């Protein structure tokens, strides 16, 4: 299986190739090296998948990265069921986005730069998912963050874009602060950072506690929560979600690949990968589930009223990531990863469709200025409809299977699970269906509401763009069929009930559920029914009686404003974090401490220097001479004393 190394190395090669030769030589052909590299990675990933399917796994160190004292960490790779699913998701979506971008980014002067970054991202993400130790995970983690920063700020001459990139990086650093400390705690606890020995040793550390500020804290809980901080940042969970909506400043293919399908799911991947640690701490698990549920609901409510097509999808991403954490929090890691996998297809599709719409609309993102587009862009419409049905959880589309499994697991996940099910399961699912179809109706149905000029230019996108849409569309429909719940397979007679969960079981485990089929059927029917209600309400509001949303917004003006302004979280952070830091450093540190206290009182330097300066102003070299004299005097002093001592 040595060829697995090619998977990350090919995109890395393409990155350097485009970075060095892109501007002068490759130029408009920059998509070739990058796309070929990721296609190669995809092929090798499939080969690795076949190996894993035949029962082979691999865990090996390539070389020792850092050694210091008893600290030692390697660059190494772990290939197992979880890795291989991530490999397939990352390389396939990445490949389609590479192809799509050939059309989408065609006119951009930074074409080569764009492909270089995409390659760097693919490399980093692949390093992240194949790592066999915490520090390499951290490497991939930060490296994808860098690519995110570079690609969000791709059009860096726009202030909003460069702001958004910077914000993404810094907000993530808050999460990484905890993550980094978590990694250090893991090392100090287990004496190693390699996954396998840590997982094996985790059980024996279960009851240990540690003294923090006089309180006894459970060691594993502390480690798990610190690590989870990183996941909260990367996967844009409340309260560190603020960077993801702004990330939409980047080119749309980037939103599809990085800020929907792959990078933002790294947090979920991390929790799933580290499940032997998380599972030992009920407290940490509850925190994960609750953060997931709160985020799922919180983001869904914001998505209800946004008019920017990409922001709606961005909030839906945040919300869906919340679902994945719900699954992890109730111990159904397999269900979380399953949703990660189906979500990658339908969410990438949603974004790429949005990109296709924006392409036709000349960059317009406001859905209120669209409408009736289905006549002009049938492929985009059809595929986006599939994606919306999938995300709403309508059977037999992919999203239905993964979401249903999460809800069923949450329903059986104890008292916390039940609350989470009510919030994430019922309420957020209702809202998801609503805002997804609000988007469809506003964009594709009704009359066109844009300018005449825009109308004149409306067109379906070129083949390089629509073909990826169609392929992803197939995924959005069929991807879920590898995880058919037992209840359905028993009716329809399909073999391999929930094959995906079985496949993942060696790595992620699978909670045994004793509840009867009738309850499962009830829960399933309920969530499907609620999705249908959501779609129906959207139809009522945006097709049947278009005046209703307006009058509702007017009647509940305060709530509408709160949602429209995203609960003012950005403003609050600005008020309590950003501005105080700036003012503190400007007035207290620089003005007072450095300027007055240290300079003035402690050192008394400025006055002294002025005095000194005045003395030597006329003969500058005088200072040097006196300095020389001082030095000579010093040496003389040493020698004199040495002489006295020696002569004694």
């Amino acid at each position: 299986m040595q060829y697995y190394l090619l998977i990350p190395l090919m995109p890395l090669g393409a990155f350097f190739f485009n970075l060095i030769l892109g501007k002068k030589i490759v130029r408009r052909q920059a998509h070739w090296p990058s796309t070929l590299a990721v296609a190669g990675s995809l092929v090798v990933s499939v080969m690795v998948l076949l190996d894993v399917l035949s029962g082979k796994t691999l865990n090996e160190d390539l070389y020792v990265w850092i050694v210091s004292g008893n600290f030692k960490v390697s660059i190494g790779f772990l290939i197992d069921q979880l890795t291989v699913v991530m490999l397939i998701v990352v390389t396939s979506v990445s490949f389609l986005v590479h192809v799509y971008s050939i059309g989408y980014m065609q006119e951009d002067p930074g074409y080569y730069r764009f492909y270089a970054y995409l390659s760097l991202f693919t490399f980093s993400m692949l390093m992240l998912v194949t790592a066999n130790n915490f520090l390499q995970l951290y490497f991939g983690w930060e490296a994808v963050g860098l690519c995110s920063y570079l690609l969000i700020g791709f059009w860096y001459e726009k202030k909003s874009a460069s702001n958004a990139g910077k914000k993404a990086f810094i907000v993530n650093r808050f999460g990484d602060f905890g993550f980094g400390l978590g990694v250090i705690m893991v090392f100090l606890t287990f004496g190693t950072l390699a996954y396998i020995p840590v997982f094996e040793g985790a059980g024996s550390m279960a009851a240990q506690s540690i003294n923090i500020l006089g309180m006894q804290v459970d060691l594993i809980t502390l480690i798990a929560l610190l690590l989870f901080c990183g996941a909260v940042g990367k996967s844009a969970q409340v309260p560190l979600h603020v960077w993801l909506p702004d990330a939409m400043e980047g080119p749309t293919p980037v939103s599809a690949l990085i800020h929907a399908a792959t990078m933002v799911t790294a947090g979920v991947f991390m929790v799933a990968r580290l499940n032997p640690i998380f599972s030992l701490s009920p407290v940490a698990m509850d925190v994960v589930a609750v953060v997931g549920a709160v985020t799922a609901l919180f983001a869904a409510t914001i998505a209800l009223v946004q008019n920017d097509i990409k922001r709606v999808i961005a909030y839906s991403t945040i919300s869906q990531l919340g679902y994945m954490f719900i699954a992890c929090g109730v111990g159904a890691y397999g269900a979380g990863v399953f949703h990660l996998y189906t979500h990658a297809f339908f969410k990438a599709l949603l974004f790429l469709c949005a990109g296709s719409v924006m392409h036709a609309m000349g960059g317009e993102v406001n859905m209120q200025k669209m409408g009736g587009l289905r006549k002009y862009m049938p492929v985009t419409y059809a595929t986006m409809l599939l994606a919306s049905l999938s995300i709403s959880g309508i059977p037999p589309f992919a999203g239905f299977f993964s979401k249903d499994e999460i809800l069923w697991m949450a329903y059986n996940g104890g008292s916390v699970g039940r609350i989470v099910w009510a919030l994430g399961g019922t309420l957020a699912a209702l809202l998801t269906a609503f805002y997804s179809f609000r988007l469809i109706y506003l964009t594709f149905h009704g009359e066109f509401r844009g300018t005449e000029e825009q109308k004149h230019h409306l067109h379906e996108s070129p083949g390089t763009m629509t073909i990826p849409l169609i392929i992803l569309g197939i995924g959005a429909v069929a991807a879920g069929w590898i995880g058919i719940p037992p209840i359905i397979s028993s009716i329809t007679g399909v073999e391999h009930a929930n094959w995906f969960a079985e496949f993942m079981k060696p790595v992620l485990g699978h909670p045994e559920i004793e509840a009867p089929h009738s309850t499962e059927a009830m829960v399933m029917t309920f969530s499907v029914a609620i999705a249908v209600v959501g779609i129906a309400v959207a139809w009522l509001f945006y097709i049947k009686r278009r005046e209703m949303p307006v009058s509702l917004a007017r009647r509940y003006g305060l709530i509408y404003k709160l949602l429209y302004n995203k609960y003012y979280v950005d403003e609050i952070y600005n008020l309590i974090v950003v501005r105080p830091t700036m003012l503190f450093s400007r007035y207290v540190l620089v003005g007072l401490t450095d300027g007055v206290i240290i300079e003035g009182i402690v050192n008394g330097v400025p006055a002294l220097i002025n005095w000194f300066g005045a003395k030597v102003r006329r003969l500058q070299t005088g200072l040097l001479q006196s300095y020389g004299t001082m030095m000579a005097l010093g040496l003389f002093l040493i020698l004199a004393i040495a002489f006295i001592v020696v002569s004694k």
Partner: protein
Amino acid sequence: MEIGYPVLSTVIFLPVFGGLLMLLIGRNQESVVKWTALFFSTLTLVLSLPLFTEFDKTTYLMQFVERKSWIPDWGVEYYVGVDGISVLFVLLSALITILCVLISWNSIKIKVKEFYVSLLLIEGAMIGVFCSLDFFLFYIFWEAMLIPMYLIIGVWGGPRRVYAAIKFFLFTLVGSIFMLIGIIVLYLKGGTFNILELSQMALPFNLQMWLFWAFFAAFAVKVPMFPLHTWLPDAHTEAPTAGSVILAAILIKMGAYGFLRFSLPLFPDASTAMTPVMLGLSVVAIIYGGLVCFAQTDLKRLIAYSSVSHMGFVTLGIFTLNSQGMEGGILYMINHGIITGALFLCVGIVYDRTHSREIVDYGGLASVMPVYAGFFMLFTLASIGLPGLNGFISEFLVILGGFKAKKLVGVLAATGIIIGAGYMLWLYQRVFFNEVNENIARIEPMGLREALPLLSLSVFVFWIGIYPDTFLSFMHVSVNHLLERVNYGVSDTMMAIKGLTGGY
């Protein structure tokens, strides 16, 4: 080791010889001066390479030792040698000097000859400081290095150069006087200037404390540690590019090196007792230096304050008194030399074109100088500790060591990674992103002579980031030996257990 020439004496005195030789060159032959300087600095680096290739990493003993009686009546010797702690700094000094010659090529316009003479003299003195094993010799090099540095700031600096130079001079002088007293006391106690012999002495605790603080005065000013840092922003800001680079890359490392070479082995008990204070001051420097960067409007001043923050990591690492912290601290010094040196080189490149250090005079530079922007991005990322680049390795080891020594210290130091990302990315945004500023819309792109130094430093950024073992392996044995001296054989695992169970 059969090298055929005395390596250390060669790399110390070849630049000095070159500098003196250049005095003979006529005043108008500027290009001869430049090429001579380049020749001697390059030759020095080439001749220093055996230190890298022939170094024995399995012993803590001094290597490449040269020992000659000098003033026998007083026991003064010419005694030089390097171990795993100092050897990398010799190499770094040799490399950085070449880059300084290249970067000053067109930006130094007056008294060209004197400038390059000063530069080469500094190189010799700096390397001498790192190699000296005799206090008398050490003191000569330590002080000798300051004269040319003073001149470089005071003669070729910016508008407030006289103020900055005098401030630099006064701070350092006061610190040195305390150290001088310390050296004299040590001589009176030990009867020798031999640093290695003195390092074996067991001094009474009280005396250790007094001496610790006497040496502290000299070293803390050099580092500089909070609250003795205020000379640094002025010196950096006013110095010409080469001066800033030398200051950042080598000169301020002397303080931290002094702690390692002198304070710890000479006064182990006092050092151990004073770790809470030293760790505290380091953490304050990390956070304070970082936050202050948010208020800076001057490019060089911002990077200077970031150095205060980074040097906080260095002293933190040293005083964790465990191997991760200490090796991390030493590597941090090397990395900071590379990264901050490179950042000052970068600032120099645009300063030569615009003659402005004000951040507001820039903006959109990425569109005008894309290759330059790429390099600056690389060094920015290295500075904020992106894994895969050199800064991460040392930062991680220092935080790990800090956490091991005292959990709160590790946690507070780790806030530096948020603050660092904040000010560096904000700086990068204001200079390189957004709309192109009118002032810089038509400046010329970077030339090969300017790109070469950046390219050579970026090799190390990747090398140390991907395969740090090349450099860390130099240190292991020497650091272990030093730790044994300080901790009296408390083993590393014992320390780890103490750290983990010791609570907060």
